[in-house]
C-alpha cells in the first residue's frame, strides 16, 4: 500500500465525519455579501476604478451642463413674444381693399389699417414735432397708408407676403423679422444639436459602463472559470460586476453633477443671465435618473448577452 505522508495530520475521514452540514444563507445575506465585497474589489482594481470614475464624472458633467443650458434655452425661447407681423405699404393715393380677404385667412391673428393721417399723428406723437412742421409734412411728405398684420408664426409670413403682394393697391410688403425671430431660430438649432449630442453622450456613458463590466469579467476570467467549475451560477459571476460598475457609476454621476452645478453657477452669474437664460438643476436630475435607468439596462443586457455566449468553461 502507498505509504502515508511523513507529516502528522488528522485523517481526512475523521475531518469528514466531524464537519456538519452547514446552513445556507438566504438571498438577502447573499446580496449583502456582494455589496460588502464591492469596496474590496474596487480597491484591488483601483487604477481601473479611478479611470472609470474620472471618465464617467467628466462625461456626466458635460451632459448635465448640456441639459441645463438646453432647458434654460427652452425656457428663454418660451418667454419670447410669439406673434410676428408684416407691414403692407399701400400705393400713394390708394386705399386698402383687402380687409375681407384678410379676415378669411385663418392664420391671421389681427390686422390694423393705419391711414396716412393717423400714421403721421402717431409719428408726431412719438417724436413730438411742432404743429407747423407737422402741417408742412402733411403737405410735402404724406405718409402712405399701411396695414400691420399679425400672424402666429414665422412660417406663415411667406404665405401672407404672397397673398398681400397679389393685391394691386399694395406697393410692397415688409416682413417684420425681429431679433426675437432670429433668436428663436438660433435657439431651435442649438437645442436640436444639443439634444443629439446629449443622446450621444448618454450612449457613450452606457457604453463605458458596459465595457467596465466586460473588462472586470475579462480581468477576472481565471477566477470566473474556477468559480464556474465549482458551481457558480451566472448570478454569482454577474452580480458583483454589475454592483461594482453601478457603484462607480453612481459616484461618477454625483461627482459630475457637483462639478456641473459649480460650473453652471459660475456661468449663470455671467453672460447666461445677461442673455436671459436661467439655469435649473431640476431637469438635469430628472435626466440623470433616466440616464441611470438606461445605463443599467444597457450594461445588464450586454453582460447577460456576453455570459450567455460564454457558457461554461473547459
Amino acid at each position: 500500500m502507498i505509504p502515508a505522508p511523513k507529516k502528522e495530520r488528522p485523517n481526512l475521514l475523521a475531518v469528514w465525519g466531524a464537519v456538519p452540514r452547514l446552513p445556507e444563507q438566504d438571498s438577502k445575506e447573499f446580496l449583502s455579501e456582494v455589496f460588502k465585497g464591492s469596496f474590496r474589489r474596487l480597491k484591488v482594481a483601483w487604477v481601473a476604478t479611478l479611470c472609470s470614475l474620472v471618465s464617467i464624472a467628466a462625461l456626466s458633467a458635460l451632459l448635465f451642463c448640456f441639459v441645463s443650458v438646453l432647458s434654460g434655452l427652452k425656457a428663454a425661447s418660451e418667454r419670447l413674444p410669439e406673434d410676428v407681423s408684416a407691414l403692407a405699404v399701400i400705393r400713394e393715393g390708394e386705399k386698402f381693399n383687402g380687409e375681407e380677404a384678410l379676415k378669411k385667412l385663418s392664420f391671421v391673428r389681427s390686422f390694423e389699417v393705419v391711414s396716412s393721417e393717423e400714421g403721421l399723428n402717431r409719428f408726431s406723437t412719438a417724436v413730438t414735432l411742432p404743429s407747423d412742421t407737422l402741417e408742412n409734412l402733411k403737405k410735402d411728405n404724406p405718409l402712405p397708408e399701411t396695414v400691420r398684420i399679425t400672424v402666429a408664426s414665422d412660417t406663415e409670413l411667406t404665405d401672407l407676403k404672397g397673398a398681400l403682394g397679389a393685391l394691386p393697391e399694395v406697393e410692397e410688403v415688409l416682413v417684420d423679422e425681429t431679433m426675437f425671430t432670429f433668436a428663436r431660430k438660433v435657439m431651435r438649432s442649438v437645442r436640436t444639436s444639443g439634444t443629439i449630442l446629449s443622446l450621444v453622450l448618454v450612449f457613450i456613458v452606457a457604453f463605458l459602463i458596459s465595457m467596465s463590466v466586460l473588462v472586470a469579467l475579462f480581468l477576472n476570467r481565471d477566477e470566473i472559470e474556477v468559480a464556474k467549475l465549482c458551481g457558480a451560477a451566472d448570478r454569482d459571476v454577474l452580480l458583483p460586476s454589475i454592483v461594482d460598475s453601478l457603484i462607480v457609476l453612481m459616484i461618477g454621476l454625483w461627482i459630475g453633477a457637483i462639478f456641473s452645478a459649480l460650473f453652471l453657477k459660475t456661468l449663470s452669474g455671467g453672460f447666461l443671465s445677461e442673455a436671459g437664460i436661467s439655469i435649473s438643476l431640476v431637469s438635469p436630475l430628472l435626466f440623470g435618473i433616466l440616464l441611470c435607468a438606461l445605463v443599467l439596462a444597457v450594461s445588464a443586457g450586454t453582460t447577460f448577452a456576453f455570459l450567455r455566449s460564454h457558457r461554461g468553461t473547459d
Partner: protein
Amino acid sequence: MIVSLQGVEKVYPPHQPALRKLNLHINEGDFIFIAGASGAGKSTLLKLLLGSERASSGTVAVLGKNMSQASEFEIAQIRKRIGIVFQDFRLLKRKTLLENVSLPLELRNYKKKDIETRSLAMLDALGLRERAYDYPPTLSGGEQQRVAIARALVGKPDLLFADEPTGNLDTHMSRIVFNLLLEANAAGVTVVVASHNLAMIEELNLRTVVLDKGEIVGDFEQPKGVR
C-alpha cells in the same frame, strides 16, 4: 448509479470525433481510473461529465441529471455537488490558500465563520494549516495540488473528478495525492481519475476503464497483471 453514459458520442466541428458510442456506469462509492494515451478522449469525457461540453448524441447522466438537457443553472447546481482537481491545479494566485479553499463554500452562501472553520479544518487535514495565509506561487507543485484537493473536497461533494492530478508531480508527491484521493473515497466520495500514470494505476489495482481514440477498449475491475 451516480454516473451513467449511454451511447455517448462527441464530434468536434467539422467532423472530428472525440468519443464514439461510449457506455459507462459508475456506482456510488466507486474509485475508477479512466486511462489512455493523450488524445484518447479522457479530458473530453470529463468535460461532458462536468457539463462544460454537450454530447453530440447519447445520454450523459450525472447525479441523476441528464447533462445534455440541463439548463445553465441546473449545471451550476450539479457542479456544487462535484469536486474537481486539475493537472495544473488552477489555484487563484492573488488569493491565499484559505481563500482558495473557501471558494466552493462561498458559492454555497455559507456563513463566513463557518466557511473559515471548515476551510481551515480541510487545510489541516491535508497538512497545510500553517500555510493557510500564504499565496499559491510560494508553494511546491505537490503542495499546490493538495490545496486543489482541499478545495475540491471542502464542500463534501458526492463526486470527485481528477484530470491527470499527478501529471506535474514526482512519484513521491503522486503517492501522497493518490493517498488523499483514496481517503476521500473511503469517506464516501465517488472518485473518477483520468490518468495515464499506468504504474500508479497498477499499484492501486482499482477499476480502470481504458480509452483509445474515443472508444472504451477495456474495463478492468483489477488491472494488475493485465499489461
